[in-house]
Structure formats: structure tokens, C-alpha cells
């Protein structure tokens, strides 16, 4: 912005200066692009190469092939015997975390922001305290706790753990969005004799819809991407989620890396797609809080 302003002031007579300016920008832009895409490019390179050419150290695929995808999707390798089951586990867990987070966080945010429940502010601060515990540090006692509740090796261990981790941020964002709704709405509803539940269902939920989409997406992605908790809480082959199955490839000496990368690419595509589809919501929701602090 400032650069373009200066260019405009200098006029077009300084074209040489303009060119050096653009070159300087490219000098930043190109390394940033390479840095960002290199691991992802390498992932795709492997996914579309057969083993021979993947291990040959070429930067470009010699004979691009989709054979790896056939092997993965057809479960034609003993590492991949449960691919569809594990994909389903990932989908189910992510969807449940998304749905439950929405229920828990929306009701809590409504109670704190609109119903002004006593101690609401304290509840919110306590909730945010969850993020002051480093993730890997909470994971250890979480593992023991889930064992104590008898939930280890079930989908619910991971769903509930991710719910506890996703909710505080969800409540915080929803509370801020909900504080912006005009107070007159509630007053009008009270005048008309609405009960709190009617206010919630008929006024609050429709108005909050955009934020709910953002938060639902956030929770789904959080659960889908999670590795550590899934790795600790699930260990039976048919309860695993995809990332844990991917991690298990590593335990073998002669891992089929090209299949590992192919599965990894299949696993990484949905979150990337969802992210781009909801980018506008996500970025504004995410950064709304940041500027305030």
C-alpha cells in the first residue's frame, strides 16, 4: 500500500526505480512461495510416482501415475488393510466434534452473553485457561483420565478430548459475535412474552448462523487434523484415525513411502478444501479477537 502510494507520487518517469522495486518484492515473494510449497510439492511428487522413480531423487515425476491411488483406495497393501475404516473413523470423529462443540459452545455463549448468567465472565476466563496448558502436557493426564472413565480405544475418548479443547475458543468467538447483536432484540422478545428458549431458537440461532458455520468448521478441522491425542487414545487397528495409521508406517524399516505420501495427500485434501471454501468466515472470525487484544 505505502509502496504503491509512493510510486504514484514519483510518477511514471521513474520506471527504472519501479522495476527495482518490483524486483525487490519478487526477491521476497519467490522464496516465500518455495518455502511454503516445497514440502507439499514433495508430497504430491511421491503420490504420483512409482516407487522406483520416487526414490531416484528427481524433482519432477518421470512417469506420472495414479497407481498409488489405486493401491490405497483398493486397500491393496497390508499397511492399508483398514484404509476405509480409518477414513470413516476420521470423518465420524471430526463430525461429532463439530456437532458437539456447536451445541456446547452455542448454549454457553448464549447463557453468558444474552442471559447474563451470574459468573459468566469467570466461566469464560476459566475456559480460556485450557489453552494455557501446553497440548502435549494435558495429553498425558488425559490419557490416564480416559482410562479411568473406561473410554480408551473408543471413538468417544478422542471426541470428548477434542470437545474439551475446541470449546473454549468456540465459546469465546461466539460470545464476542453475540455481544454485537443489539440488546433491543432481547427486549422486544421479552415484551412479546418469549421464553429464553424461544429467544434462543427463533432469534439468536438464525442471527448467529455465519459465526456458527465458522466455529463448526474450526472444530471439524481441529479434530480431523489432530495427531497426538488420537495417537495416545486409540491403538486398536480398526479404531485408528488416518493420521495415526500414517504414523504407524514409520515403525517399519521398509515402509512404502510412496503409499504413505499418497494416503497423506488424500488425508490432507479435505481440510485444505474446506479451509478454502470457508476462508472468509475463518479469517475474520479468527482475527476479530486478535485485534482487540
Amino acid at each position, binding site marked *: 500500500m505505502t509502496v504503491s502510494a509512493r510510486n504514484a507520487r514519483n510518477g511514471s518517469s521513474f520506471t527504472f526505480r519501479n522495476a527495482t522495486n518490483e524486483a525487490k518484492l519478487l526477491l521476497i515473494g519467490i522464496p516465500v512461495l518455495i*518455502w511454503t*510449497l516445497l514440502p*507439499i510439492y514433495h508430497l504430491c511428487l511421491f503420490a504420483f510416482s512409482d516407487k522406483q522413480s520416487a526414490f531416484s531423487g528427481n524433482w519432477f515425476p518421470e512417469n506420472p501415475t495414479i497407481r498409488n491411488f489405486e493401491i490405497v483406495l483398493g486397500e491393496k497393501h497390508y499397511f492399508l488393510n483398514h484404509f476405509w475404516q480409518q477414513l470413516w473413523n476420521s470423518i465420524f470423529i471430526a463430525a461429532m466434534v463439530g456437532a458437539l462443540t456447536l451445541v456446547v459452545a452455542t448454549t454457553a455463549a448464549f447463557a453468558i452473553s444474552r442471559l447474563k448468567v451470574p459468573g459468566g465472565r469467570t466461566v469464560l476466563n476459566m475456559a480460556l485457561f485450557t489453552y494455557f496448558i*501446553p497440548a*502435549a502436557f494435558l495429553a498425558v493426564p488425559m490419557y490416564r483420565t480416559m482410562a479411568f472413565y473406561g473410554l480408551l480405544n473408543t471413538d468417544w475418548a478422542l471426541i470428548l478430548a477434542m470437545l474439551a479443547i475446541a470449546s473454549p475458543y468456540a465459546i469465546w468467538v461466539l460470545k464476542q459475535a453475540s455481544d454485537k447483536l443489539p440488546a433491543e432484540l432481547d427486549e422486544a422478545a421479552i415484551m412479546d412474552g418469549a421464553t429464553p428458549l424461544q429467544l434462543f431458537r427463533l432469534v439468536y440461532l438464525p442471527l448467529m448462523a455465519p459465526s456458527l458455520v465458522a466455529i463448526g468448521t474450526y472444530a471439524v478441522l481441529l479434530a480431523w487434523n489432530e495427531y497426538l491425542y488420537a495417537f495416545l487414545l486409540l491403538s486398536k487397528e480398526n479404531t485408528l484415525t488416518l493420521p495415526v495409521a500414517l504414523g504407524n508406517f*514409520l515403525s517399519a524399516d521398509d515402509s512404502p513411502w510412496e503409499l504413505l505420501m499418497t494416503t497423506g495427500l488424500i488425508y490432507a485434501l479435505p481440510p485444505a478444501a474446506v479451509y478454502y471454501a470457508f476462508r472468509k468466515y475463518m479469517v475474520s472470525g479468527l482475527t476479530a479477537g486478535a485485534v482487540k487484544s
Partner: protein
Amino acid sequence: MSTVTLPAREGAAGATPGKTGLSSWQLWGMILVTPYLLVFALFVVYPVIYAFWLAHDPESYVELWTDPIFQRSVVNTLVFLFIGINLKMMVALLLSGFFMIQRWWIKALTVLFILPWAVPSIPTILSVRFMLNPEWGVINQTWFKLTFQDGPNWLNDPQLALFFAILVHIWKSLPFWTLIFLSGRLAISTDLYEAAQVDGASKVQRFRFITWPSMKQLYLTSLTLSTIWSLGDFNSVYLLTGGGPADLTHVLATLGIRYLRLAQVDLSMATIVSAMPLILPLVYFMMKRLSK
């Protein structure tokens, strides 16, 4: 800012004291906040209390401190945090300035730049891991083609391996913090920059006297939060090096999990509690910021 409406709202609620519904509103408030309180109690409060209870035996600390792997992990953690976070935050702050520049291709680059943060860690970290493979990795094969000599065994050297773990960590979280700083920069009034332009302020001066003062609080908050979160970063180290070679690249996060996998739960908890002197001041700082 959002709290400006607060007094008015309370006034409005207080204006209808005669209504019998008032107490039912609070009752409903409590009912609706209960699901979250249950989740919080069962899956955050209970595990935390349980962790401290498990870690109460002083002997496990003695055992822990005599474990050379632990001592190495503490050093590694400090190096990881100090280099990783400062480098990441400084680059994020500068890059956010770059992304402010209006060009069609910079806009397109912003969209791609988010990818590392949007995609899950495991495929990309494993991709880096294979790139660094001494025999088959694309880096060393290119190295060989250019120099006719074998390249270094990147992940077999503890210092290099830790360095790459830091790079992976930065790769993953840089987009997030850059976005945060970008939104911070967007909140600064352009009038300030225009006035500075008129006064003939240089780029450095504009940064020093306009950008930095407006961003300082955000930068400090981000630095603190990032320190806490990076302390819990298990993936970058575990998936790249697995703590190896010879357990020399563990950080506290991976070491805690390692003890857990070895069924030494008390040591695992003690590892976590050992990080408290580092975490508590940061949490105190964040609590003070939150309560403002």
C-alpha cells in the same frame, strides 16, 4: 470494545423487575452453561488435578533429574523455544508488512501461504523427513549430482536434527501468526502513515514510530501464547526425528509422552511439572492481560 454495551444491557434487564420471568432467565442461563461446565470439569480440571496428584512423589524428580535424557531435553526445549519462537515471530511481523502491499500476485501468494497451517501436520512433516533421508532423499541425491560427494546425514546429527525440527515448527505455525499480525496492521489508521509520508519519514521510521507502538501489545501477547503452545508441540519433533538419534533431540513434550509409552507414568508427570517454572509466569502474564 464489545463491553461498551454491557451497562446498558444490565440496565435493560433491571428495568423489568416486576416480571416473574426474571429468575427463570437466570435459571435457564445456568442450565445452558452446564454442558460446558461438565466437559470442563471432567476433561480439563480432573486431568490437571490428577496430574499433580500423580506427580507428588519427590523421588520421581530425583530419578528424573539423574536421567541424562531429561537434562538434554531441558536444554533442547530452551533452544527450541528461544530460537523457534523469536525467529518465527520476527519473520511473521516482517512478512505481515510484505502482505500489506497491494499487488495481485501478493494476494494470490497470501492464499497459498496459508496452506501449511490449513493442512494436517503428519503428511507434510513426513514429506520433509523423507526429503532429508541421507540415501534416497531428494536433497542428498541432488547434492551428490552436484558435488559427487555424499551429503550430510541430516537427521542423524542431533544439532542439525533439532534445527530441522525447529524449521518444521516454524513452517507449520508461521502462517497463523502472520495472519494475526496482518490483522493488527490493518487496524492501524492509514492517516498516520499518510501524515508520516508528508513529513518525509523513512520506511524504518514509519515502522519504529507508527507500526511498532501500535503492534507492541499484540506482539507480546502473541509471543507469550506462542511460547506456551510451542512448549506443547509434540509433532514437529516426534514425527521428524522421533526424539533420535539416541534420544538426543527430545523436548519436554516428546519426553513426557515417551515415559508414558514406557509405562513410567510418574516420570511422565514429573516431566510436565518440571516445566511449571517456565509456564506459570507466562500464564500469569496472560491472565493479567485477559482480566483487563
